[in-house]
């Protein structure tokens, strides 16, 4: 091996050494990124696998001593305090998340189709107006939203939360859809129209299938927005019947001896739906990236 290296011309050898160094550097960076991403996740499991409920026991542990699945068991059977209604809350979260996702995809894809594909003269203006939603960040609007929802007769109603999430997901969704829409030549629509397709048919048969990667990103984005939200669910939903997993989290900090292991087990279960969706749609996201490459 050393003989082979020595017989290479010096430039090649230097090039090769540099490549090896880059590879080592990339491997170290990859390791750092893995640790960086996973430490809080590890902390979640550390608490969830703690055998005893209560606040103090898990701190100071670097390894899950005497790991047990009691926490998860208490969640599934709804035996832990604060978690008596976990599955109903989980269902409520799921309902809000899925409705937000579906409505965002539907409403913004319709609007983007009209703005980008129907040759609407003032289309740009409309897309820009949508961005004015961000003139005030969502959290700044939660109190006015509460009062307005009361006026609409939607207080303590999941639809109020869905309305808020759809509103704040839409501008960014339209931005993304407009960008990807520009990658598809308008001639595709024209030839379909010449063949006698109506605007609705073009939307259903051509626009939606071709936009699948962008729509996937929009769908994940909208679901995550609803899933990450605490403020709106906490403020807008008050009755036990409508409470969500996210909206009940802050109760715990008031309790000195909250069942943290069960709570973290619940957190891990709560994290699963978006992770599952992300896994299922990962290849579409990857395809969306490739679509960007085609443009270049």
């Amino acid at each position, binding site marked *: 091996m050393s003989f082979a290296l020595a017989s290479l011309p010096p430039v090649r050898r230097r090039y090769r050494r540099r490549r090896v160094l880059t590879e080592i550097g990339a491997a170290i960076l990859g390791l750092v990124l*893995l640790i960086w991403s996973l430490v*809080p996740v590890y902390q979640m499991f550390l608490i969830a696998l703690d055998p005893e409920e209560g606040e103090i026991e898990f701190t100071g542990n670097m390894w899950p001593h005497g790991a047990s699945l009691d926490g998860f068991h208490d969640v599934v059977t709804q035996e832990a305090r604060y978690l008596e209604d976990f599955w109903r809350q989980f269902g409520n979260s799921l309902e809000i998340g899925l409705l937000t996702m579906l409505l965002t995809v539907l409403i913004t894809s*319709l*609007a983007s189709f009209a703005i980008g594909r129907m040759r609407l003269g003032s289309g740009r203006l409309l897309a820009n107006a949508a961005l004015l939603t961000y003139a005030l960040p969502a959290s*700044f609007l939660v109190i006015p939203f509460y009062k307005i929802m009361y006026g609409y007769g939607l207080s303590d109603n999941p639809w109020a939360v869905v309305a808020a999430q759809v509103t704040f997901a839409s501008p960014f969704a339209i931005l993304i859809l407009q960008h990807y829409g520009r990658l598809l030549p308008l001639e595709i629509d024209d030839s379909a129209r010449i063949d006698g397709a109506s605007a609705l048919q073009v939307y259903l048969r051509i626009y939606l299938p071709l936009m699948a990667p962008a729509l996937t990103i929009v769908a994940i984005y909208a679901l995550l927005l609803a899933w990450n939200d605490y403020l709106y669910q906490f403020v807008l939903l008050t009755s036990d019947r409508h409470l969500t997993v996210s909206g009940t989290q802050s109760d715990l900090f008031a309790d000195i001896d909250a069942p943290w292991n069960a709570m*973290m087990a619940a957190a891990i279960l709560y994290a699963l739906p978006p992770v599952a969706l992300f896994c299922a749609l990962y290849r579409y996201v990857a395809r969306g990236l490739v679509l960007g490459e085609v443009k270049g």
Partner: protein
Amino acid sequence: MTSIGEVLAAAPRASLKGPRRPPGYRHLRGSDFTWTVAFILPYAAVFLAFAVYPIGYALWMARDPALYAALVADPRYLTSLVNTLLFVAFGVNVKMFLALVLSGFFLRRGWWIKAILFVYMLPWVLASVQAFIAFHWMLIGDPGLVDGVLSALTGIEGPVWFNHRWLAIACNIIAYIWKWMPFWTLIFLAGRTAIPRVFYDAAEIDGATGPRRFIHVTVPMLANLYLLCTLLSVIWTLGDFNTVYFVSAGGPSSASDVLTTLGFHYTFETANPALGVAAMMSALPVLVPVVILLLRKLDSGEVQL
């Protein structure tokens, strides 16, 4: 009589307007018009009912100048103003810069890069409230995981993180970066894949490799996207509530609060919603220029996301 300045000012604008209009532009007629209106209507309704109205309502709620006098008189307000500034300045810029650099790392080929990308995206997919509670427990406690590892590895006894204002703010910023960096990395990754290969090949022929290729090809090609994302991120970071509320919980004794959490306290603990809204509205002088800049950048058509 038009001055030369006016002509010069008008000329580029006219030339920009021309090609922007899609080819074959025509007025909508008949059923097409009906369809277009029907397609736009749902979003227009949502926009008016749930965006325009609440924004107007918020401005109306915070209209009384006496509210702002009360804010300035509260020392907590000034503290949280400084905290917000730090949170946005570091939270946005450090995150964006690292995301830009890391997007280059994820362009490398190999199955293990794809695997790391998948794990790296996890913080974005995890629900923020629960992840931030995990951060809280990582740092607090007797000792928390971070201090535990620190003393095991180096023998140093770690600080009580949330007992110092600056440390608490730093923890919030790091948690925020952890949560949102993957999302922006994904956006920059898409932006980078859209850069034509020819540019890199040409740069390579000219002898630019590694960092120089990054500075002379990637940075100019992504400059507009970077600016656009930074503007969007400023808006979203200003409005972030979960990080501070769950990681440091505003501690020590609301010394690390930001405007959103302070407004929340005013509303729900001192039962003064108008003051809460006013506290958040006081960020408007920063927000309005950012939104105007964002709209102009987008309208010029030179940036695409």
